[in-house]
C-alpha cells in the first residue's frame, strides 16, 4: 500500500537525518530515487531548488512534494507526518534524559563522531547534483552543458567569497539562465 510505504520511507528519512538541514539530502535521494523510484534526479534537483526559495526544512518540503506526486494530498500528509514522527518521539525522550541527567554527553559525542560520515554522504549527493547540472543526467556522460558549468563556477566563487544567502544565488542563476536561453 502506497501510504504505508510513504510513511515508512519518510520515517527512515526523519530518523536517520542527523545533524540538521542538508543531512536529509542523501537519505531523501536514497529513499525517493534509489529504493522507491518516486523521483527522478531531475525532480530531486528541482525540489532542492524550490527548497532554497521557500521557507521550511528540506525534509518537510521533500515529503510534501513526493507525497503529492505519488498519492495526492493524503500522501503529502502521511509523508510529512512520517518525517516528523521519529524525531518528535526522540526529541521528547532526549528532553527527559537531559533534565534527568543534566546533559547529553553521550548523545552529543556520538553525533560528533557521526559528523564526518554525514559530510561524506552529503558530498555524494552533491556529486549527483553536479552531474545533473553538467550532463543533464546522473551518469556523468553525454554532452556537457557549458552554460551550466560556467554558472556553477561563478555561483561557487560568489558563495565562497561573499557568503550571500543561497536565495540570491538561486535567483541569479535563474535569471542568467533565462537571459542566456532567450538570446
Amino acid at each position, binding site marked *: 500500500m502506497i501510504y504505508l510505504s510513504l510513511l515508512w520511507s519518510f520515517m*527512515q528519512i526523519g*530518523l536517520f537525518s*542527523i545533524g*540538521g*538541514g542538508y543531512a536529509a539530502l542523501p537519505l531523501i535521494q536514497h529513499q525517493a530515487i534509489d529504493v522507491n523510484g518516486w523521483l527522478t534526479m531531475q525532480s530531486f*534537483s*528541482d525540489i532542492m531548488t*524550490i527548497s*532554497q526559495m*521557500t*521557507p*521550511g*526544512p*528540506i*525534509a*518537510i*518540503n521533500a515529503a*510534501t*512534494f513526493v507525497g*503529492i506526486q505519488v498519492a495526492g494530498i493524503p500522501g*503529502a500528509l502521511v509523508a*510529512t507526518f512520517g*518525517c*516528523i514522527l*521519529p*524525531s518528535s518521539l*526522540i*526529541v*521528547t525522550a532526549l528532553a527527559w534524559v*537531559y533534565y534527568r541527567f543534566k546533559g547529553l554527553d*553521550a548523545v552529543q*559525542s*556520538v*553525533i*560528533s*563522531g*557521526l559528523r*564526518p*560520515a554525514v*559530510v*561524506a*554522504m*552529503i*558530498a555524494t*549527493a552533491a556529486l549527483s547534483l*553536479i552531474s545533473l*547540472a553538467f550532463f543533464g543526467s546522473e551518469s556523468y556522460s553525454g554532452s556537457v552543458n557549458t552554460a*551550466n*558549468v560556467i554558472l556553477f563556477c561563478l*555561483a561557487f566563487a560568489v558563495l*565562497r567569497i561573499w557568503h550571500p*544567502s543561497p536565495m540570491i*544565488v*538561486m535567483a541569479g542563476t*535563474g535569471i542568467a*539562465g*533565462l537571459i*542566456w*536561453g*532567450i538570446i
Partner: protein
Amino acid sequence: MEKKRKSLLTLFLTTLEISAFTFGGGYVIIPLMRRTFVGKLGWIDEGEMLDLTAIAQSAPGPIAVNAAILIGYRTGGIAGAAVSALGAVLPPLVIISIISAFYQAFRSNRYVSLAMTAMSAGVAAVVVDVVIAMAWDILKRKKLLPAVMMAVVFVLVGFLDVSVIAMMIAAAGAGYLSYIHGKRRGI
C-alpha cells in the same frame, strides 16, 4: 482554561509565523525563536533556550521542527507540542502542495525550464559550498580518524553503493565506541 486556550493559540500563531517567514532552515530559525519566546513573549528564559537548542540539535530530523516541539512542550505540555509542531509544518506543507499541484504544467513551460536548468547549477554550487564548509570544519582539527572516516564513507556510498542507512548506523556505532574509549582513558 480560557488563559490556557489563549496561550495555545498564541503558540500556534507564533510558530506558524516564524516557520512561514524563515528561509534557510534550522540554524536561522533558532535565533528567531529565541527572539520571540525569550525576548518578546518572555515564556522561556535564556538558559533554558540554550538547553532546548542543544536538545533540538541532538535529535534526528529537522532542527526547526524539533525546536518548535520542545518549546511547545515546555510552555503547553503535550497539547503545546502538538500545536507548535503543526504550526512549524503547516507553512511548508501548504506552500509546497500548491507548487507541486502546478509543477507539471510549470516545468514544461520553456522559460521555467530554462530557469530551472540554470538553477540546478546554482543549487549544486550551494550544496558543494556547504559540504566544503563542513569538511573544512572537520579537517582543521587535524585529527586523522575523522578525515579517514570521511574519505572512506565517501567512497563506500558514492562509488560502491553502500546504503546510506547502513552507513549511518555503522558511523553511530563508531561514534559511540570512540566515546566509550575516550571515557575509559579519562578524557
